[in-house]
């Protein structure tokens, strides 16, 4: 009983903000759209900081596509925004409202399980009307090709499916982008790693400690010497009845400093500056982590091949605008523009017509220039060359530098610089911006914080124990290809659920005797894996996502 292959007009892989936007917009255009999501429910695999922005200049915002989004799916709007420059116990805080409000219509904190699952329900409603719908628990494992041309997708759980348009909205570590040869997973300096804790807190306690009303919210960023020399920073956002606290670091820096991500998070949680907000009772609801691409380096200028288009993180459309992280909003834009491009070129015999139009729309709407500012490409070539960086560092570290940054004029200039979207978009990714300057600012202008912080963050073991897993026993989704220390040891510390001298994580090292020599080898157990993607980049692995519905299940995100 042989049957014909199934065919849909459009198949969207992934139901995060990018996939949801693409699917909703495709349905608006009357396109028969099938959405495939590997989680048990949309959001169960996703982690964000997260503040979702509605930019005034953006062609689409999430509430354009999903009416009532803010009431239904978001937490608190951000009404107070600050950055804290930290040097030891000294802290200098700047109001970041100007930068935050630049081009911003509104900005809300979100938790991804809630947000994405609500979007999923709306997307299912919309796409059902045009003969499609959303299916969860389905993992797409590759591209279907006919004579070398991409014509559809293959899945673990379903027979191959053909489509006229394939939208890869499968996030960071997009297996489809890799399969199409549009993204590689090679260079740690093209990624950030985000680690996050969701902390339980009663709404009125939040109002009280952050001095806000119930319909207001606070956002705080942290940089300086709090994280030693690792390039990155911390964040704290208020939700309705919880806080999102986390860190985002350059992956290459984590590797170079051999830093343990969970310890960096703990450094933030236990800093005196947090004492007032966290109080004495610390109740962590969830620990999570995920990679984030750096659009400045990897946002694809031609994110398509044949009938395949990439949107959101899969296309590298994740903008770190200085300390402000904008990924979800751009995923929404990318998804909606890809849908429009397909609608405009519908019926065109050229399989790449939609992709080309999509790339054009990304350019014309100004989205590409936000993601990949040309001035950054220019600044980077000088700024990141070691000689220059070291020279700048040396000057800043000297008395002259401290004096220069330390004088009152510098204080005002710096505050303005932080709030300049133009300047922050071209700060080269060096230690200077993340560590040196903030630390000097903190040292020179800060006040000493003497609060006692009584927070005792849970151990890694307890954090893993608090997560929900449906382990695919006997079918690990990551394979270690090279177990030598040289190839894969970086994963032992960079993996957010592994640590040196911790036996309960994914990666660990062992000493083995070979021909009288002692050798360090790396071993892997994927059971505690949170699917962050780090070891796909920093270790020598064959890396895939688990089958549909398997693996970690986030409740908060």
């Amino acid at each position, binding site marked *: *009983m042989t049957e014909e292959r199934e065919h*849909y007009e459009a198949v969207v892989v992934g139901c995060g903000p990018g996939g949801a936007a693409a699917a909703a917009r495709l349905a608006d255009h009357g396109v028969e759209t099938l959405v495939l999501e590997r989680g048990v429910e949309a959001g169960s695999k996703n982690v964000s900081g997260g503040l979702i922005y509605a930019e005034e200049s953006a062609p689409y915002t999430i509430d354009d596509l999903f009416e009532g989004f803010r009431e239904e799916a978001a937490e608190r709007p951000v009404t107070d925004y600050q950055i804290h420059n930290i040097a030891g116990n000294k802290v200098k805080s700047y109001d970041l409202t100007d930068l935050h409000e630049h081009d911003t219509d509104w900005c809300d904190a979100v938790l991804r399980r809630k947000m994405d699952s609500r979007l999923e329900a709306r997307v299912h409603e919309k796409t*059902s009307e045009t003969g*499609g719908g959303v299916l969860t628990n389905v993992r797409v494992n590759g591209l279907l090709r006919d004579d070398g041309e991409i014509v559809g997708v293959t899945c673990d759980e379903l*027979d191959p*499916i053909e489509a006229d348009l394939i939208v890869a909205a499968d996030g960071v570590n997009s297996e489809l982008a890799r399969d199409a040869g549009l993204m590689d997973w090679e260079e740690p300096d093209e990624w950030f790693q985000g680690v996050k804790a969701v902390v339980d807190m009663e709404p009125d306690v939040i109002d009280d400690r952050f001095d806000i009303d119930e319909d207001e919210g606070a956002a705080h960023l942290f940089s300086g010497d709090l994280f030693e020399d690792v390039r990155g920073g911390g964040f704290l956002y208020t939700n309705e009845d919880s806080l999102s606290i986390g860190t985002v670091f350059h992956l290459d820096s984590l590797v170079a400093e051999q830093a343990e991500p969970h310890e960096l998070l703990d450094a933030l949680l236990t800093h005196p500056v947090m004492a007032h907000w966290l109080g004495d009772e610390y109740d962590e609801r969830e620990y999570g982590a995920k990679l984030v691409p750096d659009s400045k380096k990897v946002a694809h200028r031609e994110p398509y091949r044949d009938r395949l288009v990439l949107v959101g993180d899969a296309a590298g459309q994740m903008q770190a605008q200085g300390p402000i992280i904008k990924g979800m909003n751009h995923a929404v834009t990318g998804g909606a523009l890809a849908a429009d491009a397909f609608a405009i070129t519908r019926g065109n015999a050229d399989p790449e017509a939609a992709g080309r139009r999509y790339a054009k729309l990304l350019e014309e709407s100004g989205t590409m220039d936000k993601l990949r500012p040309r001035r950054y490409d220019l600044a980077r070539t000088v700024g990141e060359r070691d000689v220059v960086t070291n020279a700048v560092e040396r000057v800043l570290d000297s008395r002259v530098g401290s004096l220069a940054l330390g004088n009152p004029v510098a204080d005002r200039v710096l505050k303005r610089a932080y709030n300049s979207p133009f300047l922050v978009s071209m700060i080269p990714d060096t230690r200077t911006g993340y560590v040196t300057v903030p630390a000097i600012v903190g040292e020179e202008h800060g006040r000493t914080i003497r609060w006692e912080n009584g927070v005792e963050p849970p151990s890694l073991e307890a954090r893993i124990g608090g997560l929900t897993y449906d382990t695919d026993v006997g079918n690990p989704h990551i394979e270690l290809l090279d177990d030598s220390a040289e190839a894969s040891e970086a994963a032992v510390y960079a993996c957010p659920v592994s640590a040196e001298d911790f036996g309960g994580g994914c990666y660990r090292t062992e000493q083995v005797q070979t021909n009288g020599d002692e050798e360090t080898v790396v071993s892997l157990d994927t059971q505690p894996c949170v699917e962050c993607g780090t070891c796909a980049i920093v270790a020598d692995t064959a890396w895939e996502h688990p089958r549909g519905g398997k693996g970690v299940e986030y409740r908060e995100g």
Partner: protein
Amino acid sequence: MRSLVLTKGVPDFSEGAVSFDEDGHLERGKTPTVMNPNDEFAVRAALQTKVRHGGHVSGMSMGPPGYGDVLQEAMESVYTDDSYLLSDRELAASDTWATAITLSAGIEKYREEVADVDLVFAGFKTADGETGQTGPQTCWALDWPIVTHVIALDIDPDERRLRAKRLVEGDVDEIETVEAPLPCMVITDPEFEPAYRKASHRLTHKRLRDETEERAADHDEHLTTWDHVDLNLDPDYIGLDGSPTIVSSVDPIPKAPSEREATMIDPHDGDAMEPVLEELQPFAGSD
């Protein structure tokens, strides 16, 4: 496609739910009734047919009025369209034979008055009786082909045939593939796995689930009850009077008395370990 799925209630044997009296007899009144666990595979097979080929599935059960809940459970879990309960005092205490006679009468009435039937699904055996006879006996009464121990099922509606994989247990377990014409009775094996390898199947599955929610909440509206008069059955041939099998007594299996004693020994405690090592001495190797 029009299918009927036969299901019955059994006492909920799960921990905490089941209740025994002092003599170890089941207290039916105190133990809730749930769908016979093996019937779940039958209802899943019926659902697979509906999802893949469309059509209508009715649940049918013989038993006390309380079995309405079981039919409701079937509606909630596998989205049956409606339910038929064969219930009557005269039907009480039926053995498998009398049950089969009654069920086949129910099926015949359904075919005459509701719609003709392509497939009848039944579970492999009940959790409280364990005979495994009712399905085949019902089929015998209908004079239909029957395929038992089904673990996978494919239907060709145009050819009006089915193809099934059966698990044949023996010295070596074998999987046998058989074909049969419709109408046919299908007895599922607990290994039965529905397969939804098409996106359209899964979308239909989801749509049926959404549609069923309201219907299942209002189950009484979709429940038809037939008694022996409706079924045109002679009381002498059904219920206790029509049951040749008599279960004379049911004895609990005595538990083996525990004779062994266990002592916890700290392996690092040398003195305490000594007697253990002595015991092990004879088993140790020559060196």
